[in-house]
């Protein structure tokens, strides 16, 4: 059976003609350069972004970090001391530890959220500095 070939193959000349700068170009609008310079001047004259007050925030970060460490240490110590208390059969361990575990969990989440906040802040600062 004779193959049907209705369209010829594209040749290099077809590519050259269709994609060459001469056959496929536009002229920028007459006000394009002025528009760019206006945007540039506006940006140049804009006040620089306010720097993050690291000096003021640093004590807060340090305190938060220290509290987080203390809480973690406290939880670890409490958990290690539980076998000793389990000797007394009359004490309901779960009832005693429940509030502690609850607070420890909350503290952990607080720490995680603080760390995420710091990380996102650093990321934003990096983005701003690269742009």
């Amino acid at each position, binding site marked *: 059976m004779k193959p049907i070939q209705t*369209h010829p193959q*594209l040749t290099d000349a077809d*590519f050259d003609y269709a994609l060459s700068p001469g056959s*496929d170009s*536009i*002229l920028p609008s007459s006000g394009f*350069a002025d528009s*760019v310079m206006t*945007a540039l001047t506006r*940006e140049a004259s804009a006040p620089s972004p306010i720097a993050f007050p690291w000096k003021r925030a640093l004590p807060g970060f340090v305190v938060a970090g220290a509290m987080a460490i203390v809480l973690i240490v406290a939880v670890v110590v409490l958990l290690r001391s539980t076998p000793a208390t389990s000797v007394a059969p009359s004490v309901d361990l779960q009832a005693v530890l429940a509030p502690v575990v609850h607070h420890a969990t909350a503290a952990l989440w607080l720490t995680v959220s603080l760390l995420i906040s710091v990380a996102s802040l650093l990321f934003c600062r990096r983005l701003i500095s690269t742009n």
Partner: protein
Amino acid sequence: MTTVPQAEAHPTDEAIVARVLAGDTAAFEGIVRRWQSPLVNLAWRFCRDRARAEEMAQEAFLRAWRNLAQFRGDSAFSTWLFALATNLYRTELRRIPAAMLSLDQIAEPPDPAIAGSAIEESSRDESLRRAVLALPPKYRDAILLFYFHEQDVPAAARTLHIPEGTIKARLFRGRELLRSKFSRPRAASKSASLNTQHPREARTP
């Protein structure tokens, strides 16, 4: 009549960059006026939308101005500028594609039985340009840059920061994809005599 020294009348890009870095923001206009047409046209090739092309070119100029201190003069200013603009355009296209068309959705080329007129050829050329945009990005970028730089493989390679061999391979594959789209029947034998390497690619050092 006073004569203006050539260097002052047409300062080089590097001289303008030095002035801008020294605080003369207005001097950047020389860069904008000199390179506005190439940058708008490069953007036009990536999106085929005049308004968007100008927006992207404007953003490219602004980004170039912000990052001007990073231009160290290792290469020509134009190379640096085109690389920066190309990166920006590619990022923009990833964010908002130029046309939500796949290769199969591109308008079929005209039937050769009725082809031959200037209108049909123009339609075929436009279909081909749109088909280039529908290629996978790595082939699209290679073809766009190769033809934008007037078929200069080293220039396209420098702009895309990839080896010349990679550009050639992507050009080859990109053209193959376009040929398969623009030839009928699709399963027809690929001519053994089909020249898939552009003559300009072979002459590169």
